[in-house]
C-alpha cells in the first residue's frame, strides 16, 4: 500500500519518443528510467521540467496528478498529505524556496501614479534617467569650505557603496547553490556594477577577484570566516535571520558538502553544516554592537550590513541596529526563499516585506536617523514593479534571490533541500553542476536586471521623476487598491481615488 500519492503525473507519448534517453539522463531526481521504453516513476518527480525542456521530440507532458480528494475547503490536500507523511516519519517536514501560501500580497494591491497635463512625463530613451544608488551611512548635513572662490566639502567623505542599479543579488550560500551558480552571480554583479551577498557559505578563493562586488556574510555557523575573507569584499553582512525561516538556524546536509565546499566552509567533508539559531555571541543589541565593531576592525572599516527577517517588531529592531553602528539594514520579508526550511516556519512566520519597509523607514524618520543607514528590501521581489513599489515605500535598494535563480533556469520545484537540482543550481553533484554554464547563466542574470532597469526607468519617466532618490520613500506616488484602512495607515499610502495631499 502507498499512503502518499505522487504530486505529478508524467505522460510519455511513445508514438513520438525515439528512446534517446536524454530525459532519463537529465532528471536529477531519478524519476525516469529507460528499459525497452521510457518508464516514469512519478513519485520521484519534482515538477522541474528539466526532462520536458530537453526532450527533442516534445514527447513528455508533466501535469499535476489529478488525484481527487473529496472537496474540502478546510482540509486541503496539502494538509492531508502532510499528516500522512508525519504519521509515517514523526519528523519536521522540509521544503525549499519561499512561502507559497495565498496570503494577501500587498505589492499586488499597490498602484503607481503617472503624469498628465500639469506635469510632463519624461521619455527615458531621450532624457537622462538616473538609478545610481549609494548604500551606507552618511551625515545628515554637509559643511563646506570656500577657497579661491571655489567650494569644497569640509565634512569627511563617508564610505558608501555605489551601485548603478538598485537591484542586488540576495545572499545564497555557496553550498546551498553550486559553484557554477555562485560564479554566475559574481560575473553578473560585476558586469552590472552592482553587489551580491555571499550568504553564509564563505567565498571560494578563485572568486576573490570579484570582491569589490561582494558583501561577505558572517552568520551563526561562522562558516568560511577568516581574516583574509573579511578583507576581500566590499562589505560584511551579519546574518541574524532569514525571511523564510526567522528565528531558526540553517542546515546544509552532508550530501551537499563535498571537498570544495568543505574547504571553503572550513568544516570536515561529508558532515552536516549546522548553523545555530542565534549567533551565540549575540544575545542582545549591545552584543550586536560589539560584533559590528569587531568586524569593522577586522575588515579595515568596511561597511557592515545586518540582515534580519521581517518580524512584528522590525521597526524598533532596525532602529537599534543602525544605532548599534551598522551601515545597512537588510530586511527579508516572509516570502523570501530558502535552500531548506521547515514548512511550518516558511509558511507561518514573519511579516510581508512591504510592511516591514514602510514601518522601518517611517520609524527611522521619526527618530531622525534615516541617514544612518541604508534599507535593503528582499523577500520575493518578483518584478521591476515590486522593486519600484518597495523603493517608493522607503527602501534604498532591493535584493533578488528567487528571481535570480529563475533567470538561471530554476523552475521553482521547491526541492533545493534534496540536492538533486536537475538544473545544476541547488546541488553539489558534479554531474548536475556542470550542466550550468556560468557564463550563460550570468548573461541571463544581466539580461534580467537590464530588463528591469529599463522598466523602472519607464515608470519613473511616466511619473515625471528622473532620479531614483525622488522615488525613494515617495509614497505620495503610490495608491492602495483593496487594502484595509489600517494596513494603508501602516504603509503610509492613500487609497486609490484620494488626490495628492
Amino acid at each position, binding site marked *: 500500500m502507498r499512503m502518499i500519492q505522487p504530486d505529478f503525473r508524467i505522460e510519455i507519448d511513445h508514438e513520438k519518443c525515439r528512446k534517446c534517453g536524454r530525459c532519463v539522463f537529465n532528471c536529477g531526481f531519478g524519476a525516469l528510467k529507460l528499459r525497452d521504453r521510457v518508464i516514469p516513476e512519478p513519485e520521484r518527480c519534482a515538477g522541474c521540467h528539466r526532462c520536458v525542456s530537453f526532450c527533442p521530440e516534445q514527447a513528455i507532458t508533466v501535469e499535476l496528478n489529478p488525484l481527487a480528494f473529496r472537496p474540502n475547503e478546510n482540509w486541503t490536500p496539502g494538509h492531508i498529505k502532510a499528516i500522512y507523511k508525519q504519521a509515517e516519519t514523526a519528523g519536521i517536514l522540509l521544503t525549499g524556496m519561499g512561502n507559497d501560501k495565498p496570503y494577501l500580497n500587498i505589492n499586488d494591491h499597490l498602484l503607481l501614479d503617472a*503624469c498628465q*497635463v*500639469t*506635469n*510632463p512625463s*519624461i521619455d527615458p530613451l531621450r*532624457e*537622462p534617467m*538616473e538609478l*545610481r544608488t*549609494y548604500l551606507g551611512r*552618511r*551625515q*545628515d*548635513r*554637509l*559643511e*563646506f569650505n*570656500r577657497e579661491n572662490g*571655489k*567650494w*569644497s*566639502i569640509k*565634512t569627511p*567623505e*563617508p564610505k*558608501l557603496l555605489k551601485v548603478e542599479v538598485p537591484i542586488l543579488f540576495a545572499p545564497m550560500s555557496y553550498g546551498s547553490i553550486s559553484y557554477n551558480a555562485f560564479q554566475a552571480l559574481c560575473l553578473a554583479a560585476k558586469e552590472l556594477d552592482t553587489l551580491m551577498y555571499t550568504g553564509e557559505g564563505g567565498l571560494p578563493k578563485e572568486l576573490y577577484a570579484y570582491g569589490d562586488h561582494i558583501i561577505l556574510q558572517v552568520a551563526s555557523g561562522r562558516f568560511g570566516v577568516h581574516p583574509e575573507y573579511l578583507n576581500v569584499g566590499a562589505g560584511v553582512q551579519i546574518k541574524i535571520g532569514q525571511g523564510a525561516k526567522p528565528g531558526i538556524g540553517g542546515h546544509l546536509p552532508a550530501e551537499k558538502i563535498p571537498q570544495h565546499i568543505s574547504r571553503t566552509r572550513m568544516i570536515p567533508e561529508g558532515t552536516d553544516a549546522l548553523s545555530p539559531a542565534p549567533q551565540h555571541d549575540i544575545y542582545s543589541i549591545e552584543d550586536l554592537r560589539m560584533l559590528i565593531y569587531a568586524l569593522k576592525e577586522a575588515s579595515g572599516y568596511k561597511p557592515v550590513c545586518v540582515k534580519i527577517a521581517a518580524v512584528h517588531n522590525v521597526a524598533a529592531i532596525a532602529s537599534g541596529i543602525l544605532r548599534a553602528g551598522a551601515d545597512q539594514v537588510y530586511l527579508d520579508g516572509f516570502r523570501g526563499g530558502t535552500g531548506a526550511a521547515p514548512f511550518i516556519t516558511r509558511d507561518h512566520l514573519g511579516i510581508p516585506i512591504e510592511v516591514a519597509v514602510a514601518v522601518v523607514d517611517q520609524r527611522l*524618520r521619526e527618530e*531622525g536617523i*534615516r*541617514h544612518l543607514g541604508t534599507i535593503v528590501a528582499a523577500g520575493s521581489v518578483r518584478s521591476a514593479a515590486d522593486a519600484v513599489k518597495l523603493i*517608493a515605500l522607503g527602501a534604498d535598494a532591493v535584493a533578488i534571490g528567487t528571481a535570480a535563480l529563475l533567470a538561471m533556469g530554476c523552475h521553482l520545484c521547491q526541492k533545493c533541500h534534496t540536492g538533486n537540482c536537475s538544473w545544476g543550481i541547488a546541488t553539489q553533484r558534479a554531474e548536475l553542476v556542470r550542466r550550468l554554464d556560468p557564463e550563460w547563466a550570468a548573461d541571463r542574470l544581466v539580461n534580467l536586471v537590464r530588463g528591469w532597469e529599463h522598466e523602472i526607468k519607464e515608470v519613473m519617466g511616466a*511619473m*515625471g*521623476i*528622473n*532620479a531614483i*532618490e*525622488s*522615488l*525613494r*520613500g*515617495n*509614497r*505620495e*506616488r503610490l495608491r492602495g487598491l483593496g487594502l484595509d484602512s489600517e494596513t494603508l495607515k501602516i504603509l503610509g499610502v492613500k487609497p486609490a481615488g*484620494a*488626490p*495628492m*495631499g
Partner: protein
Amino acid sequence: MRSECGYDLGMRNPCGCGITSFLSARRRMFGGELIVRSLHNMVERGNGLGAGYAGYGIYPERKDHYALHLMYEDEQCRQSTEDYLRLYFRIFEAEPIPTRLVASIDSPPIFFRYFVLPKEDALETDWTEPAWDEFVMSRVTEVNSKIPGAFVLSSGKNMGVFKGVGFPLEIGEFFRLDEYQGYCWIGHSRFPTNTPGWWGGAHPFTMLDTAVVHNGEISSYGINRRYVEMFGYRCTMMTDSEVVAYLIDLLHRKHKIPLQLIPAILASEFWKNIDLMESEMKKLHESIRQVYGSALLNGPFAIVVGHRDGMFGLADRVKLRPMIAAKKDDVLYIASEESAIREICSEPDSVWMPRAGELVSGSYEEVQQ
C-alpha cells in the same frame, strides 16, 4: 490634509502659474503697484483662483521685529491665536492689515499683523538670533498645524506676504499694495487645476524671511515633505509649493548651506556630468547628492525666492518651466515671461534666459545697510 483645521479638502493642488519679481541691490524703494502691474501683464497665466505678493523693506520702522502676517477664518480663532502669541511673544504692535473693498472679492478671511519678539522667559537657553529664528519657526509651525482656522502667511523681518483668491489686480487692490514701499517684490498668479477657493493656497509660501513663489508641480513632493518633516516642519497649506519654502529655510538657514550650492541640491547635476568633473568638484556634487537626495526637487519648476540677503531664481534640472531674467542698473528682474519685465522696465540693460539649474541671484549692497 488638514482635517483638524476644518480644511479637510483632501487635495493638494498642482498648478500652472506666472511669477515675477525684482530686487534693487541699493535698496531703492518701489511702490507695490509696480509688481501688481508686472503680474497683471501675465493675467493669462492665472485663472483668478489665487494671486499673492511678498514685499521686502516694507516695514522700516519695525525692521528689527518679526512681522507676523496672520490669516483667520473667524474672530474666535483670532482670539485663541492671540492668546497663544501672547504666551510666547512680546507684541509691540497688533493691527488689522488694511484692506479695500473689491467688488469681486466675496467674504475674505480676516487679516492681522503683529510685530513681535520672542519673550525672554519663553526662550530659556539661547539668546542669540539663530535661536530666535528657530523659536519663531517652531511657533509658526505650531499655529499652522494646531490652531484651527489660523494660518501664518509670513513671519520674517521687514517683510510681509499679501495673498488670496482673486486675479493679481484684485488682490493688489484688496491689500492696498500701492500704499507700501519696498526694495524687493515678488508676485505670483495662480492657475490651480482644482479649486478649493482657499486663500492660504495662494503663493508666496514663507518661513521667516524666506518667501517662495513657484511655478510647477513637484513630482518628488512625497519624499520632500517627509524629509522636511524630519526637521520639525509641517505642511499645512494644501499645496505642494509650500514644501519648497521649508526646504530652503532648512538648507540655507538651519544647515547654513551657501546660496551658491542650493541649486546643486534642488536641481542636482546629472551623474553623467558629475562623472566628468575634476576631483574636488566631483566630490562636492557627489556628496551633495548622497546626503541631500531627498531634497532634490524633481519635476518641472521655476521658483523665485526672497530671503534675508536678497533674492534668487532657479529652474529645474531640465528646465521644464519658463524663467527669464533681466538687469537694469541695480535692479534684477526675474519672471516667467519677458513681457512682465518689459511692462515695468521698458529698456533693460540686459535680458537673458537662465539655463536649467542655473542660479540667478541678486543680493543687497552692504554699504546701504
